């Protein structure tokens, strides 16, 4: 679908060096990287807004490296939506069609269909400044999709939204990917977003791709310390998921049962962020669904934080502040209780 060969561009404080990437048709591809890594510039190079210093870009085997953006058929969605403030929602969405000299009635039908799809039909006459973030981003998505782009580029599309809207949009964007069979390249610094959406992930650092793979590969086999640190994953446990009743999923790891609020069945990996796990010396009553007891296996002093590994049947990594570590008088072999909520358990 899209092939990038040895792409480089050096511009102001941003730099991309020797980028090679291939994204398959219909794939949801996430480029993950910290800010300043050149993610936006890479997307804008693919869209044709800039031209590279060296290298080539192919879309459907046709070279487009020097083609202007209006001839590429590539949709673009930015973090801050970039709706045209002087046009209402309808006019924003129909923008791409009205340039194509389509019949008025036809435009109206297509735009209505698109607004229905995103549940924003009631907003047709509203101006962008009166919309919420989620409504703006839905409008921006509809505007990009109305031309049925072969490729949809999204630059941090969820970063400006609150958590609930973000989760709703994650579902919608996955749906778009399937329904329109659009190839999507989505850029973000948020690993959870990548996990939820990506078929494959590329890690971008200092303008270089340091790893490409599906989420499990990147999770389980981070190629270097940067990737491992950046994805920030400590507790990954494989298991078999089944319905646990009461909206919960129970995952059997072979050694322990872990409850998650996410719905999934079959072979899964679970992750729990170390900061979501609490420890205590005595058993306490808690609303947390996951309660385990086990001995401390390892203590690593990381300065401000102490990293503990606790063997509860599976190794669990937990961070403690130095003060709580001293208060608890922990040492190797000592038994502790570990608690975490079902909502803190992520399945992928």
């Amino acid at each position: 679908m899209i092939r990038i060969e040895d792409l480089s561009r050096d511009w102001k404080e941003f730099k991309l060096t020797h980028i090679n990437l291939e994204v398959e048709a219909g794939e949801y591809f996430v480029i993950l990287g910290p800010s300043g890594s050149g993610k936006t510039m890479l997307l804008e190079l693919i869209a044709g807004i800039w031209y590279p210093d060296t290298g080539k870009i192919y879309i459907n085997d046709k070279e487009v490296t020097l083609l202007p953006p209006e001839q590429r058929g590539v949709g673009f969605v930015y973090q801050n939506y970039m709706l045209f403030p002087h046009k209402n929602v309808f006019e924003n969405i129909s923008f791409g069609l009205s340039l194509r000299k389509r019949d008025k009635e036809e435009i109206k039908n297509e735009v209505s269909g698109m607004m229905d799809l995103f549940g924003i039909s009631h907003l047709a006459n509203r101006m962008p400044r009166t919309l919420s973030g989620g409504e703006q981003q839905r409008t921006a998505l509809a505007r990009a999709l109305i031309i049925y782009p072969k490729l949809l580029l999204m630059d941090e599309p969820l970063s400006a939204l609150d958590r609930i809207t973000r989760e709703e949009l994650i579902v919608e964007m996955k749906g778009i990917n399937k329904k329109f069979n659009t190839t999507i390249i989505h850029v973000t610094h948020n690993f959870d977003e990548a996990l939820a959406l990506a078929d494959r992930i590329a890690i971008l650092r200092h303008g270089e791709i340091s790893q490409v793979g599906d989420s499990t590969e990147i999770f389980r086999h981070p190629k270097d310390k940067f990737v491992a640190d950046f994805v920030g994953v400590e507790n990954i446990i494989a298991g078999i998921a089944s319905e646990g009743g009461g909206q919960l999923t129970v995952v059997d790891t072979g050694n322990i049962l872990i409850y998650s609020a996410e719905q999934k069945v079959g072979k899964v990996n679970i992750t729990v962020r170390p900061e979501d796990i609490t420890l205590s010396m005595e058993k306490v009553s808690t609303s947390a669904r996951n309660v385990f007891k086990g001995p401390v296996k390892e203590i690593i002093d990381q300065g401000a934080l102490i990293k503990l590994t606790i063997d509860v049947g599976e190794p669990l990594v937990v961070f403690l502040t130095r003060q709580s570590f001293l208060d608890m008088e922990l040492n190797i072999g000592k038994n502790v209780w570990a608690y975490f909520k079902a909502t803190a358990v992520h399945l992928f």
Partner: protein
Amino acid sequence: MRKLDHTTIFFVFMGSFLVLFILIPIANLMVSSNLNSIISNLQNSAVIGAIWVSVYSALIATILAVIFGVPLAYILARHDFAFKGFIESIIDVPIVIPHTVSGIALLLVFTSSGILGGPFSNLGITFVNALPGVIICMLFVSSSFVVNSAREGFENVDPRMEKVARTLGSGSMRTFFVISLPLSLRSIVVGSIMCWARAISEFGSIVILAYYPLTAPTLIYQQFENFSLSGATSISVILISLCLAVFVVVRLLIRGWGVYDTD
């Protein structure tokens, strides 16, 4: 009721100085003029003619400033290039040099033997003591208002908005006309009003390059020189009223217009 602290009271006291300093002479000018004299001046074809020359020439100068200034403003807002600072300074030079100096500089190149006046005189256009001379004096001293204001307008349009329009199939020229220009129109209009007002008030360079046809400021100066302070006062009042009226009307027209900021 909001309690005023000492700082606010002190600053208001200091700040009112400039407001009064500007307001008092203008208000005094308006009230001290003789109504009969104003009416007789309004019936005087020389006075009306001079005001017309001012208004009309300033309008042409403003249109020229928009036609040539808006593209320049867009380039300055969107691109970085060598000598950009130099070009920006050139645009601002007419603001900082004395207007009589501008007049001398224009006179040297726009006489019929000058490097710019020569080719134009072959086309039958002369500048010295002619309407085109008035217009170029006005354009010289006031075009920077359009350039600077339009530039600010363009800088406030997020370039990413233009990029999105491009990806949706809009060419770069069309994107300028349907996205960038409408969103900066308010700044361009405000700049144009400033340009027009500054053009009407131009005197120093016009006196040197094109004393005739008489513009309103030149006529006021002529009346004053001929020991007719009351004549000069009446024409001043007419001119001020006209400018304020246009200023207020355009301000009202663009009120709330083209303000799209979300917050």
